């Protein structure tokens, strides 16, 4: 039977991190200050978002060492450990798009699948590069101008203003427009973490022997193209687009899916 172990863990992490950011502003805590663009952990460890950093560099501005070091720390963490875990364990928009995805299923909006011919899953990589080009041309970090992620985060930390409309727009787009439209097709930040996390150690592993081919995992997976091995081979999910959210593990009734460490000995992984 499905359980919600990883869902609870993810929501705890997401809300916990947001609360720490909130408390830094509201109570002056020095645990996690700033926003996802650039933060300070424990008052001295710099953290910075790699794609945001790249955008600033693209404008031609030579950034301070704090941001460059912070971006390096984040890159190393997701590259070695987390994979694309930012998207499902940290990003606040994930809660919005998860809600839209869940409602889609409840409202039977998925029954008649529309073929969005012009919106492919690789659109995000085009947008990621485009964001850097626009940053260079206009002289402003282009994605940061409309990023629902930092708009929502800043909103929760110091007030939304009209910024809430961007978050609502994403929700409506995912609910009534394209299934997993934002996180799974468009978000350039997610694209950057897909590339960074491609080789990470933590991976979802599939046990072909235990699988009963119920395909529940493919129903809940927001990036279900990464689950191409289901009931075919006992290998790990190695695509960078997998967000390590664990929804497939929660929903699997056969113990055929679970987190594991990527094995470099077994060439099949």
């Amino acid at each position, binding site marked *: 039977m499905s359980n919600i172990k990883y869902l609870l863990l993810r929501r705890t992490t997401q809300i916990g991190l947001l609360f720490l950011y909130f408390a830094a502003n509201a109570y002056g805590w020095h645990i996690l200050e700033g926003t996802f663009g650039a933060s300070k952990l424990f008052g001295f460890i710099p953290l910075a978002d790699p794609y945001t950093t790249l955008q600033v560099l693209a404008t031609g501005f030579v950034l301070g060492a704090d941001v460059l070091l912070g971006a390096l720390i984040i890159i190393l963490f997701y590259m070695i450990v987390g994979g694309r875990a930012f998207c499902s364990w940290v990003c606040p928009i994930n809660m919005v798009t998860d809600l839209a995805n869940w409602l889609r299923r409840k409202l039977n909006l998925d029954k008649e699948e529309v073929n969005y011919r012009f919106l492919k899953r690789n659109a995000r990589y085009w947008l990621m590069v485009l964001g850097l080009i626009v940053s260079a041309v*206009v002289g402003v970090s282009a994605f940061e101008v409309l990023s629902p992620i930092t708009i929502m985060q800043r909103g929760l930390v110091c007030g939304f203003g009209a910024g809430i409309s961007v978050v609502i727009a994403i929700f409506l787009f995912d609910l009534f427009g394209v299934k997993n439209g934002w996180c799974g097709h468009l978000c350039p930040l997610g694209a950057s973490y897909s590339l960074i996390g491609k080789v990470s150690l933590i991976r979802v592993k599939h046990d072909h022997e235990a699988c009963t081919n119920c395909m529940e995992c493919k129903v809940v997976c927001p990036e279900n193209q990464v689950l191409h091995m289901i009931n075919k081979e006992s290998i790990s999910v190695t695509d960078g687009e997998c967000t390590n959210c664990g929804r497939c593990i929660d929903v699997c009734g056969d113990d055929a899916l679970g987190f594991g460490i990527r094995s470099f000995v077994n060439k099949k992984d």
Partner: protein
Amino acid sequence: MANSDNNRRKFMATTLQSVGLTALGGLLWSGYTDEVKASPLVLRPPGALHEEDFLKACIKCGLCAEACVNRDSNKNKDGSKREGTLQMAKGGDHRMIGTPFFVPTDVPCYMCDDIPCVPVCPSGALDEASVTSEKGELDINQARMGLAVVHKESCIAFWGIQCDACYRACPLMDEAITLEYQKNERTGKHAFLLPIVQSDVCTGCGLCEKACVTEKPAIFVLPVEQATGRAGDHYVKGWDKKDQLRAGDRKLDEIETHTERSEQEASDYLNAEVEY
């Protein structure tokens, strides 16, 4: 063979479509971004780079605003926390979203000696060197957040009514705002006490704007770029030895200029093509 030809055509068409849609997106995106960055009437934290560079550099982390609101001195008399000076622009603020700014009539900059907002900036958008004295100490008096401007017609001191609210509110009293005495010819026995902003000293903190007693402040802070003019390099103050150096070490009788005689008819160029 025909199959691979088909595949290639399909691949070409898809690639062309992707490139085309990306170009479309790029046009819309650039246009939008360029519009939203055009908000010149915004006051930035101390030490901020020139607006153009500031917008490039600011990573929108909010560490400056957090340092501002949580500084020790930011307390009411009863010990409760006050609103901070720096705000992070939200949607609807009509300023580049996520960047720090302040509105003097809400909360002016109190010019903290330790400038908590500047050293925390990780990106270099707030330049610590620009608010550091030659001795290597932080010096908020070097900040140039803006420049106070007096609108004479609504300033009651210029009407002859005694008011020195801005003069007294100024953290650099008698330096950034001085009082100029003038005879009030209307009454014949009173003096005007006129507030005059010294633009080489004013930091643009906005305490004067906050203190101004008129319904809509008659003294207000504008970004330096908007509050100042520029004479141009070709005007030299000949009576100022230092400025005269710009013209080089040349004596008047050594300067020869040869201008060719114009072939055109003489014209009244100041009034040319102007009709009344």
